[in-house]
């Protein structure tokens, strides 16, 4: 094979490099802008998620405070029962949101914020179960109220 037979291949290669080089030169300016817009979107998303997590944690603290109340009348206990149902329903919605973030989590985006979000959802379920236990289940367990009475005599 002589030099002239290789010319088309070289020319084709030269053309592809020339075209690609030109595209990269053009993209240099736009890439910075695109990256900045992407980073801003990630920051906004992180802030939104952190804010949502804070709100959930506030709810958890408020529910904990209810467990310190003396509640005996049926009407108030019905409200507590409704609250338990609402908390479980809220938790279901939040779990769906968390699962929809799986693609981000796998890519390592907003890992800390997503982890904190999940922890707050778990706390929400926890406190709902404890609220229910406190007012509806534990008092009915044999010996529980008697234990309280004996402790008060110590």
């Amino acid at each position, binding site marked *: 094979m002589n030099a002239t037979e290789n010319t088309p291949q070289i020319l084709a290669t030269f053309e592809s490099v020339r075209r690609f080089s030109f595209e990269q030169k053009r993209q240099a300016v736009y890439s910075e802008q695109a990256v900045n817009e992407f980073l801003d979107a990630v920051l906004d998303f992180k802030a939104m998620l952190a804010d949502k997590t804070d709100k959930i944690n506030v709810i958890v603290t408020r529910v904990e405070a209810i467990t310190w109340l003396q509640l005996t009348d049926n009407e108030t206990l019905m409200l507590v029962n409704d609250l338990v149902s609402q908390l479980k329903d809220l938790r279901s919605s939040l779990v769906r949101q968390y699962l929809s973030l799986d693609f981000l989590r796998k890519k390592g985006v907003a890992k800390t914020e997503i982890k904190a979000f999940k922890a707050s959802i778990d*706390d929400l379920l926890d406190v709902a179960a404890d609220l229910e236990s406190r007012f509806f289940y534990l008092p009915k367990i044999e010996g529980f109220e008697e234990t309280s009475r004996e*402790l008060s005599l110590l």
Partner: protein
Amino acid sequence: MAIYCTETFRAQFAKLIKKTSYADLEEELINHFFNKDIAQLSTGTRLNNSDTTPYIKKRLAGSGGYRMYYLLLIKDGNVYLMFVHPKSGSMGYDNITDASKAALYKEVLKCIQHNELYFLRVVGDKVHFDPVK
């Protein structure tokens, strides 16, 4: 304020802090319970109906988090640690059952009545468990 615990708590604590992933538990215990007053410990979820001897479940931070169960004897200013479990990791789980919560409650009463307790003190960054009996 004096801090005591049951054998159940002591054994569970000892098992957990042996694992690297739960090495922060000791520091969490010290930070949360030592040099605190009763008012500071009267937070979290109350599981019984008593203002004088509240049975408390407390969320402790730390990687993955822990759940601590304890009793306050307000008039004596004493704390009785009953159980601890991590939320995550190889020994972690979400919640204990109501039956377990009730069993721990009855156990702490029995331990207090029979003095079957450990007194907790801190030496350096370590918690020591001294049998009361």
